[in-house]
């Protein structure tokens, strides 16, 4: 039994971490040519580059990515929770159409969505602005949030709210102390989705941001383009770290209830 668990655990760990191994090796290599399995010489050049020479650029990229992803996540939750509740809990005319319209930005290739909206954004003065990029990220994040929250609410008993009211809870307290805690696992998943989706947006940020919004993926691609593999590997690792932390942080919330089930 113990052996089985260990095998399972280590194989999961291995499959998750193995792809990172070449990245780590690349980021600390100085010279690495075919056909050697390991780099011929190691050195901190890549790391000193991204923390030293390009440090401020990377830092501002991190800040841009982080603030974009955070704002996008918050807005997509604020809009997505009520929308998901409406779609999951109530039955109304045109519900299927609403569903289809919501899923459209996910089905249509992101390139055409971003290109199409770009024209409008220019006319509205939203192109090359933070707001514009947040909006374009929302077109991808919001549907996911709504679907996750909608799924949570389709398996939700609104009697809990009536019970809380009868016990003296005002409408505001019902939202804060009953509904939100009840759907917390769903919120966590939705927030994680939104954050990571926004965090990894490249194309839409490039098109709408027009090179003004230098997020981490944009920097990453330009570094990859320059052909400096060790530096690109190091930036990739910096890029993965916050996403990894977000996942770990939410894992606590997910494990707490919900996913564990009652029975």
């Amino acid at each position, binding site marked *: 039994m113990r052996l089985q668990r260990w095998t399972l655990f280590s194989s999961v760990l291995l499959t998750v971490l193995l792809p990172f191994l070449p990245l780590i090796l690349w980021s600390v290599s100085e010279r690495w040519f075919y056909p050697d399995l390991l780099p011929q010489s190691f050195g901190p050049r890549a790391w000193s580059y991204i923390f030293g020479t390009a440090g401020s650029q990377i830092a501002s990229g991190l800040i841009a990515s982080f603030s974009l992803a955070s704002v996008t996540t918050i807005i997509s939750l604020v809009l997505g929770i009520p929308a998901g509740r409406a779609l999951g809990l109530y039955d109304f005319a045109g519900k299927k159409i609403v569903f289809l319209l919501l899923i459209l930005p996910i089905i249509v290739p992101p390139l055409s969505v971003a290109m199409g909206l770009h024209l409008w954004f220019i006319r509205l003065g939203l192109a090359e602005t933070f707001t514009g990029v947040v909006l374009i990220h929302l077109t991808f994040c919001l549907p996911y949030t709504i679907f996750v929250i909608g799924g949570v609410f389709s398996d939700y*008993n609104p*009697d*809990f709210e*009536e*019970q*809380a*009211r*009868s*016990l*003296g*809870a*005002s409408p505001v*307290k019902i939202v804060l102390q*009953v509904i939100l*805690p*009840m759907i*917390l696992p769903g919120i966590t998943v939705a927030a994680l989705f939104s954050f990571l989706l926004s965090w990894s947006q490249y194309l839409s940020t490039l098109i709408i941001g027009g090179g003004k919004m230098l997020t981490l993926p944009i920097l990453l691609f330009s570094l990859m383009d320059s052909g400096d593999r060790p530096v690109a590997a190091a930036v990739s690792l910096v890029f993965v770290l916050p996403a990894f932390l977000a996942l770990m942080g939410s894992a606590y919330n997910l494990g707490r*209830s919900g996913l564990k089930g*009652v*029975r």
Partner: protein
Amino acid sequence: MGRLELQNLNISYDNRPIIRDLSLDINDGEIVSLLGPSGVGKTTILKAIAGLLPPASGRIIIDGHPVDHLPAEKRDAVLIFQKPLLFPFLNVGQNIGFGLKMAKIKRLAASKQIDKIIEITGLTGLKNRKIHQLSGGQQQRVALARGLVLEPSILLLDEPLSNLDAKLRQQMRELISNVQTRTGTTMLFVTHDQSEAFAISNRICVLLDGSLRQTGTPTQLFYQPADPDVARFFGCVNFIDGQIDKGMFQGDFARCTTSLSDSPKAIAVIRPEDIILSSDKRENGTVGTVTQIQFEGSTTRVTIETDNKTFTALSLRPDFVVKQSVWLYFPPERLHIFPHYQKP
């Protein structure tokens, strides 16, 4: 204090009238049951009293004050739903204390009240348990405690025992009775189960077809039903047509004295257990053929067909055979007479 008055309450749902012209008085410290078949609108009444559903017309008065304008959270009536509906993200103590927290009771005072109610409802030692670690009966007790701890004027209970097995149901019944005696909380209890209503309540209100047909003590309802529908609801299925003439009911098979005024049409009912079956001819009776025998343990249900009527009798002994001919005797003192009656 916990007096509840309902005055001419009408409740509709989707423009369909559910409850018609309901008036009801519940005194302080009483347990009153609302008894009726499933789907008659019992829960709807409770929701209206709790403020979760606006009535179409009529007044709801708690302790002498009309509460129609108050939202649910401000009404001094707490509704306990059929399902326990305990918040899964709170433990037992926090669930019980939810209402106190909403009422902004200081933590120390709240904790004392919670401990007291935990003791009363027999949940000692479970205060820090998670909800999913509780059995069904314990969950239902926490739900009850969560309402009781607020000491509402009226506690509204919506079939709180229906999800429990027979043994637990009996325990909960006793618990509710005991708690009621200890706390003196006025309770309005909804159920479709007659025996539950009989066992638990001081008075019972019978709801049929959206209106209140009769209010009375359990024995009154059982032995003196107000109309044939109530009688039928309590399992009284034997009806004898006849007329009342000079203080005497004259039926097809039975006659008895009555205090009712003369009427060309009247109905007598008799409970299945009051019909006496015998092999000898007797006055006030008729002969019939046994068509069905159902053994139910302590009693046997015998269906007997006479020339134009079917009777059901309960016998203590199962010594009958199908197609056997038996005499039915209707003891005059057991007949309950209704004057001519039209369905409301």
